[in-house]
């Protein structure tokens, strides 16, 4: 009972619970920003680090939390909840988890407020830090980007778990007994991620099982989330971040520009992230839901019906939280997207691809100039490009010219019409052949001509058979003589070898 608690203890306890609630929200939201968090230890107490933990305070998040609490404290029947949801670039959304800070009636009268409760709340915050990295939403939040973003909503009152779908799991982070009740922190998370295939929301598997810090594809410019009306980046004017988010006024433009032009390192800007004021902390991030111009977190839309609701419920009229309907819609949209992706990859016309195969132009095949349209495009392998526009009747590859019966079928296919007939017949290379990389056969000293002229170079003297045996005999005879000379000069050779070593 409160009567047993001294006024000072009561005051302290209220303060602890209030700041614990605020820090809880900070830890949860920061864990869903999509970036690794790093804060420094400090051996000297600064006096401002509640629970002796270095947890930064994002002002907008604190503001939202305070707004939700509206001067009250979590108590029996009054829970503070942080809802984490996912919103795709098409505007579909899904609740992923709900963190609840509750108080029940079980009191621990003997516990020391200023010491034990405080330390246990500190341990509980550490546990929260650990558990926030373990629930499935963490991995999703680390991969947010152009496909989807992660949003948060803080509310006070009754816990709402209906949006988590069937079969949601609960993990208890911890409890701390106090003289006025037991503080409980828990998380209920969705397990049924039905409309999210692993293909859509996970990056490709790392090669050889090692995480490679590879770049992330820049998001498409035309994939603009419809409902991202509140996506703005809080940025102090003198901050320079490579220009991806220079004081954007219209939030929708942020989405477009960031998706189409942002280099990989600035991809984070499209996520739930925050950029602190210049004297602020080390971590750089931009928030969703923050109004531009450096104001504190206020929805850009007219006030939503719920007090502290920064979820985009206003413009999401079709997306009211419901169970199966939304999921079906989401499933279809997801699949549709995938089909489109797949369709763009495969050839649209199987007949054309077949023609491309049969019409492949081999090297050295002479084609009448009228058909060399692709070559005029000045492409390196233009000669090999399938010519879908040419009619089949003129194509000698499809309809080879009539050949003399004595010729082999191979020669018939190789000798195209318009062959001059001159040149050596014995090496199966045509008269007017078109060597690879050759552009035009009309020039006098062309690659083809060069090939022909220097096709049969004279044999090297040492390689010619009738002289080789003779020279071999000569070599053998001269060998002893040579050996005698070398042995005489052996000192010189040794000195040379030593020099080399």
């Amino acid at each position, binding site marked *: 009972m409160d009567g047993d608690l001294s006024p000072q203890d009561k005051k302290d306890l209220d303060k602890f619970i209030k700041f614990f609630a605020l820090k809880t929200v900070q830890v949860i939201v920061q864990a869903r920003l999509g970036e690794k*968090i790093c804060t420094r*230890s400090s051996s000297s107490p600064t006096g401002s680090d509640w629970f*002796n933990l270095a947890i930064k305070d994002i002002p907008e998040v604190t503001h939202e939390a305070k707004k939700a609490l509206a001067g009250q404290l979590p108590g029996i029947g009054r829970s503070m909840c942080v809802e984490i949801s996912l919103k795709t670039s098409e505007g579909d959304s899904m609740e992923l988890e709900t963190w609840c800070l509750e108080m029940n009636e079980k009191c621990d009268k003997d516990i020391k407020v200023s010491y034990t409760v405080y330390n246990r709340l500190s*341990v509980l915050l*550490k546990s929260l830090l*650990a558990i926030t990295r373990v629930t499935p939403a963490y991995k999703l939040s680390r991969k947010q980007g152009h496909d989807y973003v992660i949003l948060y909503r803080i509310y006070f009152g009754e816990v709402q778990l209906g949006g988590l779908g069937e079969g949601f799991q609960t993990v208890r982070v*911890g409890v701390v007994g106090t003289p006025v009740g037991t503080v409980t922190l828990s998380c209920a998370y969705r397990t049924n991620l039905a409309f999210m295939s692993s293909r859509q929301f996970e990056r490709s598997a790392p090669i050889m*099982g090692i995480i490679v810090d590879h770049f992330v594809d820049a998001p498409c410019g035309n994939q603009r989330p419809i409902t991202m009306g509140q996506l703005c980046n809080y940025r102090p004017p003198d901050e320079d971040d490579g220009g991806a988010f220079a004081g954007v006024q219209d939030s929708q433009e942020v989405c477009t520009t960031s998706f189409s032009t942002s280099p990989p390192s600035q991809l984070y800007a499209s996520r739930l992230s925050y950029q602190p004021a210049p004297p602020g902390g080390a971590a750089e991030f931009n928030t969703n839901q923050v109004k531009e111009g450096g104001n504190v977190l206020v929805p850009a839309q007219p006030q939503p019906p719920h007090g502290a609701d920064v979820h985009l419920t206003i413009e999401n009229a079709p997306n009211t939280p419901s169970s199966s309907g939304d999921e079906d819609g989401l499933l279809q949209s997801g699949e549709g997207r995938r089909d489109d992706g797949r369709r763009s990859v495969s050839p649209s016309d199987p007949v054309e691809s077949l023609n491309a195969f049969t019409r492949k132009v081999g090297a050295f095949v002479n084609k009448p100039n009228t058909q060399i349209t692709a070559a005029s495009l000045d492409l390196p392998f233009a000669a090999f490009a399938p010519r879908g526009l040419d009619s089949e009747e003129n194509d000698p590859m499809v309809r080879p010219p009539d050949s003399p019966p004595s010729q082999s079928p191979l020669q018939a296919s190789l000798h195209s019409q318009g062959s001059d007939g001159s040149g050596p017949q014995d090496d199966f290379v045509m008269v007017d052949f078109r060597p690879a990389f050759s552009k035009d056969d009309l020039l006098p000293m062309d690659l083809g001509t060069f090939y022909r002229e220097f096709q049969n170079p004279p044999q090297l003297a040492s390689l010619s058979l009738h002289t080789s045996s003779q020279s071999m005999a000569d070599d053998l005879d001269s060998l002893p003589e040579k050996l005698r000379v070398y042995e005489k000069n052996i000192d010189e050779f040794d000195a040379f070898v030593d020099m080399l070593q």
Partner: protein
Amino acid sequence: MNCRSEVLEVTVEARQVEEATLALLHTILLHRSTGKFHYKKEGTYSIGTVGTQDIDCDFIDFTFVRVSSEELDRVIRKAVSEFKDALSSDGMGQISLEFYQKKKSRWPFSDECIPWEVWSIKVSVVNLANEQERQICREKVGEKLGEKVINVVEVINRHEYLPKMPTQSEVDNVFDTSLKDVQPYLHKITYQITDSLGTSVSTTMRRLIKDTLAL
């Protein structure tokens, strides 16, 4: 006083041993470390601030939180590295993190170390045949580690016995004050290796020789 003992078991690939062990040890130490104590004249003390850091594992789909202290990380990594080197490619081992209190004894007796909490991490190492299995292993081990972290948190939040906060003269009997930025409870890390049965080793050798001869 009874010593609380907890056992965590994991099955990992050889290259995951280090990260899995670090993840669990650091998670425990995060909860068992405070800021540096600064005692004041009146007998009160103030406590420094503990920073935290997210660490992504390279071989496991997992991220864990550790205390931001390079010194502490170095000490833990050294112990884990020795443990990993001692483990064979398909063996079993156990690494233990023991929190203890020192009880000063009179000369000539040395100080007594009384453990109050022991965490044992049993590690079984497996060999996998192909990349697909390894990929599955990455994810599975990540999930398993998540469950272990939840187990750790559950035990710690029972708020069972913890040493009393010491006076200035006794602080070294309870806490490790050698680090300059954080102050974990006094702890030590030990390990033991349970090699797999002799037959499995010889089977592997036989197979190797057979394969070589078959070429």
